[in-house]
């Protein structure tokens, strides 16, 4: 069986994105400019990472004036915190297949 990679893991697999995310966890809401100063990469690159993090529902942006303030979404890491639930889903799927097999074995 192929597990679908969780978007949370996928987006945090990149060390630069992890660093940005960790910074938002630690420091709270930040603008792209502030994040760029600490990230050591260009602002467009930071924006791109923030887009990936946003798509994974890890962070959200709040426009204010000309700035966008980014912060960690409430419950962002639920897929990690409640990871036993995910493992349960994996086993449920396996046992679904077991049940299909048992039905086939009847014939």
């Amino acid at each position: 069986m192929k597990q679908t990679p969780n978007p949370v893991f996928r987006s945090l697999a990149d060390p630069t994105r992890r660093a940005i995310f960790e910074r938002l966890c630690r420091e709270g809401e930040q603008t792209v400019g502030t994040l760029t100063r600490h990230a050591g990469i260009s602002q467009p690159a930071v924006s791109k990472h923030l887009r990936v993090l946003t798509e994974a529902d890890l962070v959200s942006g709040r426009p204010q004036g000309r700035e966008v303030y980014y912060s960690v979404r409430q419950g962002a890491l639920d897929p990690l915190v409640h990871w036993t639930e995910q493992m349960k889903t994996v086993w449920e799927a396996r046992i679904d297949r077991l049940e299909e097999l048992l039905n086939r074995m009847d014939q």
Partner: protein
Amino acid sequence: MTQPATDTRSVIVERHLPHPPEKVWRALTVNHLLAEWLMETDFVPEPGHRFRFVQDWGSIDCEVVSTEPPRSLAYSWNSQDLETVVSWTLTPVPGGTHLRMEQTGFRKGQARYFGGAQAGWPRFLDALEQLLDHTQQ
């Protein structure tokens, strides 16, 4: 010091199957059947037998802990430093079998093994989880 029990977690899945325990037992212990619903394996139902479940993303190292056909089966389920035990219990019930799967021994920091997390996944998730536990409550 051993870790307190609350530091490990279990996953339990239970299912009523409209099939007799002997048949479910076969699906749990015969390798070509295991390959159809779980993974390719060189399993042998003998305590102490070491075997693997193999998938395209890697393999799981196992060792049979106990077998009691057709009632219970347990094997270790290890990958990297993930050390768990998978236990199957088959209880005959009217019209079939009550199947229970319990995987025990997960520690909190092992979340990185989910979602197809790859070997070499950095250790940062441990720290991150602690951080989030701290901030989200």
